[in-house]
């Protein structure tokens, strides 16, 4: 399949994929319960609350308590989904997640919206760009960053059947839908195109931008492999290595600090098994700021031309 053939079938926010997914999985699995810290509306939980009022827990603005309650609820077999913005899901409650969830091996699903700069106007207090790193450093934590509405819905449903703590990261903006729910499998990289000159590994909203960059590169005669690493941990090392052995250079693209995120994960695999030039598209050890998602992606170097330039540089470095 050529990248040009990948069409958007509509536009929707990924958090709506979460809201729809949790209702669908709750209908099938009676152990699924949802908790929120005063953000049920933003997390698209209205339908869940309507259908399963007894399985919905309003915690108020008390995220630490929410994580602890979720950990306790697993004792007796519930599968708690905690819901709030990514910043309050991770940095604010790191020690609660570390001790009560990760170290204790609890089957808690930490579901986080409004990640990254595409949160927009609320600004840097709410735009966490460090959460993937925080979560992937915890032993036993699975980290999933789906790329669109359909994939977020699929991931929301898949994690109910997946034993162990999970961090599921998604976002606020309306974004193209270009995958099918059936494409998603935890831990399995999604290959959009096969190429020989450069591999672009991306996650979350940046997958769509990576595809657009790939189309531009193809028009310039460059053969591009675009791969969606929706599961950052455990990483599909086999798919990563197979690709870099073929293309021999890499671009990583993520809405996250280049320190600690997807790029670091890919670089560690490459440095251990098959060192190649890597260019990093992500925020450069900085906080975000207020603005529209589009303006912010441009200002912080996360736009399509940034990926194109990074790919050309990576290819140049091979020589």
């Amino acid at each position, binding site marked *: 399949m050529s990248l040009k053939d990948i069409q958007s079938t509509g536009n929707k926010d990924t958090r709506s994929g979460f809201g729809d997914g949790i209702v669908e999985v709750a209908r099938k699995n009676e152990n699924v319960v949802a908790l929120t810290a005063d953000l049920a509306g933003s997390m698209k939980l209205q339908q869940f609350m309507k259908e399963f009022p007894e399985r919905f*827990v309003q915690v*108020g603005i008390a995220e630490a308590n929410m994580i*602890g*309650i979720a950990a*306790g*609820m697993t*004792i*007796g077999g519930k599968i708690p989904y905690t819901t709030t913005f990514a910043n309050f899901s991770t940095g604010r409650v790191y020690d*609660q997640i570390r001790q009560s969830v990760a*170290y204790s091996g609890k089957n808690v699903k930490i579901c986080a919206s409004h990640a990254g700069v595409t949160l927009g106007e609320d600004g840097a207090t709410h735009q966490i760009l460090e959460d993937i790193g925080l979560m992937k450093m915890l032993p036993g934590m699975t980290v999933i960053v789906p790329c669109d509405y359909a994939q977020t819905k699929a991931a929301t449903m898949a994690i109910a059947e997946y034993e162990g703590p999970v961090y599921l990261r998604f976002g606020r903006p309306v974004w193209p839908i270009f995958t099918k729910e059936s494409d998603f499998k935890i831990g399995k990289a999604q290959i959009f195109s096969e190429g020989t000159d450069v591999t672009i590994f991306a996650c979350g909203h940046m997958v769509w931008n990576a595809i657009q960059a790939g189309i531009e590169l193809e028009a310039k005669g460059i053969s591009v492999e675009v791969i969606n690493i929706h599961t950052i941990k455990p990483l599909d090392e086999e798919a990563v290595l197979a690709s870099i052995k073929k293309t021999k250079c890499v671009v990583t693209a993520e809405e996250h600090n280049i320190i600690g995120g997807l790029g670091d994960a890919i670089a560690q695999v490459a440095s251990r098994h098959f060192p190649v030039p890597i260019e990093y598209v992500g925020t450069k050890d900085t906080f975000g700021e207020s603005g529209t998602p589009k303006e912010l992606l441009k200002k912080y170097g996360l736009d399509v031309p940034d990926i194109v330039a990074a790919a050309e540089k990576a290819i140049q470095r091979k020589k």
Partner: protein
Amino acid sequence: MPELKAIASQIRRDIVRMVHGSSSGHPGGSLGCADFLTALYFQVMKHDPNFNMNATNEDVFFLSNGHISPVFYSVLARSGYFDVKELATFRKINSRLQGHPATHEHLPGVRIASGSLGQGLSAAIGAALTKKLNKENTTVFSLHGDGELDEGQIWEAAMFAPHHKVDNLIATIDWNGQQIDGPTDKVMSLGNIRQKFDAFGWTTLEMNGNDMDDVIATLDKAKSLTGQGKPIAIMMHTIMGKGVDFMENDHNWHGIAPNDEQLAKALAQLPETMGDY
């Protein structure tokens, strides 16, 4: 089986021997809470030493102030969760008896890690909610240090439980007035803890945690008050270091181990009733 006071004496021997054996650990709070935990595990709670993480149809206990692990481990072993000989591995390499309780090494009887303070009341509430969803008629117990109440998460949880009518929960505060850096009044004033829990909407009780008869009577009373729409909090007055005269009421014994001479002096005050491990 010896009577409860005799069991508590053996538990206290275990505590000082464990802490001496690893030259580290927290004897003060452990000794103070020995009567309470003995009462819970040997009389009050309906529980199964054939450990099942899900605790289906069992009462369940959460130790939030995880540093008093010696008393927890001793009570678990003495009530049949694992061999008492394993108490000798406390805080040593490759042991299931970590410095602070953990599920990670699969020690029977522990359902969540604690040690970083302030998290256990939330976990207890969560387990209580699940028991309600599962339509169980069982009770969740938890224990917290008074110094631990400095942590903000405790008050998030204290606000939650009455709002959501978590009335299958009995939380006990070990009110010994001491924390690591000194008396709680000097480190961070707690004021009247009972009035605070009253104001948050809990049913509150008060007891002498070192008087076995009062402990049993108060826990029985607390159980009779479950299922009435409110969580229950017990203010438990204890003496840190209770049972070993030179450790009593001295915050310096919060987290240090006795030397050989101090151990002998301590054991001389504590009758061996169930056989040392």
